């Protein structure tokens, strides 16, 4: 049997072709991003306007029906998109900023400091995200959207830091780092030119995953009354408010649930797609 020669053009082709998971993810997340931006300028009804009757079924006037005090649920869910994306993006940004910095520091630190940092991160990660977030919210002055974002950001930073530390350590053992080092390149330059380009694809995939998890965590916090205070229409709070009326008006619980699922699945597909796209070994196996 003859070994197949490496088909260079096939690799090039696959590089141009986006993985279907990435496309699906982009579409699902894109829908939410468009809705979120739209709410800044227009919603079918005012955000807190009690425009309809009690628990109206979905109709042309109210696409997702109304809640107990007659607010339009579709409007609420649209605003929920904005809040979910703000929380996801905000929490990941905070998590990335703190996490990457800590991770790189740990990788470069002396052995004792590294061990101490690693142990601290492990302890932080051992705390369930939701519990950690509840602690932060409790310590701040009342529940607010900012406190929720900060809390989730801190929880995410521990995960990002641990991942970064491992990635950095692995890259630092590579020959080209030694080569760069012996040729007199400064550490900051090594980090920017050699290190970060080699770890960011993996980090990006992780950020997408963390985004999805942060959205769920914020919904959970709001469900518990610890997220964005009313009348901010977080999906978690919509679910909580619809819980008591699930027999008479099931759509009130189903609709925000669907919105939440679409965004989280979209984010996970996006993460999957990014990994396929950014991982050379996977590309070759296609």
């Amino acid at each position: 049997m003859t070994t197949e020669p490496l088909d260079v053009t096939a690799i090039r082709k696959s590089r141009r072709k986006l993985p279907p998971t990435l496309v699906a993810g982009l579409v699902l997340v894109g829908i939410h991003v468009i809705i979120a931006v739209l709410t800044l300028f227009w919603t079918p009804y005012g955000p807190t306007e009690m425009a309809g009757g009690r628990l109206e079924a979905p109709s042309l006037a109210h696409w997702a029906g109304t809640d107990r005090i007659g607010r339009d649920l579709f409007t609420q869910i649209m605003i929920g998109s904005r809040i979910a994306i703000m929380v996801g993006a905000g929490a990941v940004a905070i998590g990335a900023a703190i996490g990457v910095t800590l991770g790189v520091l740990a990788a470069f630190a002396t052995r004792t400091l590294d061990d101490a940092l690693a142990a601290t991160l492990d302890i932080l990660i051992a705390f369930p995200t939701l519990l950690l977030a509840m602690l932060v919210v409790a310590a701040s002055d009342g529940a607010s959207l900012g406190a929720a974002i900060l809390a989730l950001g801190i929880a995410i930073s521990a995960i990002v830091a641990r991942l970064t530390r491992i990635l950095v350590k692995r890259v630092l053992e590579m020959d080209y780092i030694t080569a760069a080092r012996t040729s007199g390149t400064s550490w900051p330059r090594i980090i920017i030119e050699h290190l970060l380009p080699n770890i960011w694809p993996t980090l990006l995939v992780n950020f997408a995953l963390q985004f999805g998890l942060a959205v769920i965590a914020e919904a959970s916090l709001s469900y518990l009354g610890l997220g964005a205070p009313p009348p901010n229409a977080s999906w978690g709070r919509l679910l909580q408010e619809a819980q008591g009326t699930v027999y008479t008006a099931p759509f009130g619980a189903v609709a925000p649930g669907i919105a939440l699922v679409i965004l989280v699945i979209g984010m996970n597909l996006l993460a999957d797609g990014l990994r396929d796209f950014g991982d050379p070994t996977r590309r070759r196996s296609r």
Partner: protein
Amino acid sequence: MSLPLLTKKVLAGAALTAVAVAAPFAAFGQDANPDAIIRIGSLYEPQNLDNTAGAGQGITEAFNGNVYEGLFRLTDAGDVEDVLVETYEISENGLTYTFTLRDGVTFHSGDPLTAQDVKFSIERVIAPESQSSRKSSLATIENIEAVDDRTVVITLSQRSISLPYNLSYVWIVNDAATELTSSADGTGPYRLDEWRRGSSLSLTRFDDYWGQAPANGGVVLTYFTEATAQNNALLTGAIDIIPAVQSPDSLALFEGNPEFNVTEGASTTKQLLAYNDRIEPFSNVNVRKALARAINKERLLDSIWGGYGTLIGSFVPPTDPWYVDLTDVDPYDPESARALLEEAGYGEGFRFTVDTPNYDPHPIVAQFVQNELAQIGVTMDINLITANEWYTKIYQAQDFEATFQEHVNHRDIVFYGNPNFYWGYDNAEVIALIASAEASETVDEQVEKLTQANRIIAEEAASNWLYLYPQIVVSRANVSGYPINGLNSQFFAYDIEKSGQ
């Protein structure tokens, strides 16, 4: 079916009618089974079996009037009637009560009821280690003396017209009984059969009961941790009755189904927006009245309870003797609300934060009120807090601007006579009326004074009383004769009839 069922259609008048009818419907008389076991579903399992040891509201539901009786009883209509006391006399100065006990009453253990048991029972409630919620209202008792087997003399340090009412919460317990936290020895129509912790509590008819025998053979209270499971148990026939349904939307399962009866009585639970009346701008009567007029309470009640519940315009429910309908004092009128704000010097509106318990219905009520107040230019920020935070921040530290809360007790207008209470309402006339009402010589005088106090707090809009919760009982259609108001969580089982098996 020709039962006088009190559904939401006849709500407003019904709540009052219900109060007037003591033992509501005694239907199915012909085929009622005298030995039937009534299965009651409840979410409130007692912590223990002793109401002086922090047993919780569940023990009142299970035992009050069923296993234990007091010298007096608060009927389902809100009246106080004699039970173990045959007659009593009050001295001229109102400080000495002489009670003659009913003859021929025996405890479940077979011991006869004596004056010693009564003395023992009252002393248990007022003892330093007692955790009874009635302890403070009995603080005027100076001395209790058992003169002979059937005579008890109570001496007070000052007049207390509510003594018989307060004594209705003192269970008469056999003074020879021990381990009252896990067993019982009372004089009621049922004796304790078995308590399976975490699951159920069963009562059996007591054959030597001094009064009229119960209309059924016994009672089983089944405890649930969650309302959905409880509703399902009623649907599948595992229980016969739920004494207090907490959400109108679970009622959709039972309404219009001929297999179930849904009744609405008058609860004593009041939903309110309480201000801190000590601080600006809530110290200003016109501001409080403006806020009362700005809220469409009819629509709010309908949003939360879907047609159940009542508006009362004050803090006093229809089952309190000093109830008057005060909904006309500050009716919904945003126009005059704005005018009142103007008059108070807040024509531009103002902003405040309301501490809102994070459980239903408070957050949704808060959002409704927030919308309504925005219409008159008042901005209300909602701060969600836990039940514990409510207790420490608001009830104890009184560090708040306004809050939402539900108040569950019967006859609790007295809170407005205490300027140190969390809402800090301080009106010398009301304080004097409430204090002197307790020292009244006759019940009429007490009712007159408290009615007057009730009117004043309503005129001054001391708090914003949003609505009175309904008390909703759901039963299977073959069950009747149950109490519909369930005052203070009590649920007398002895008149309940059940036909069929």
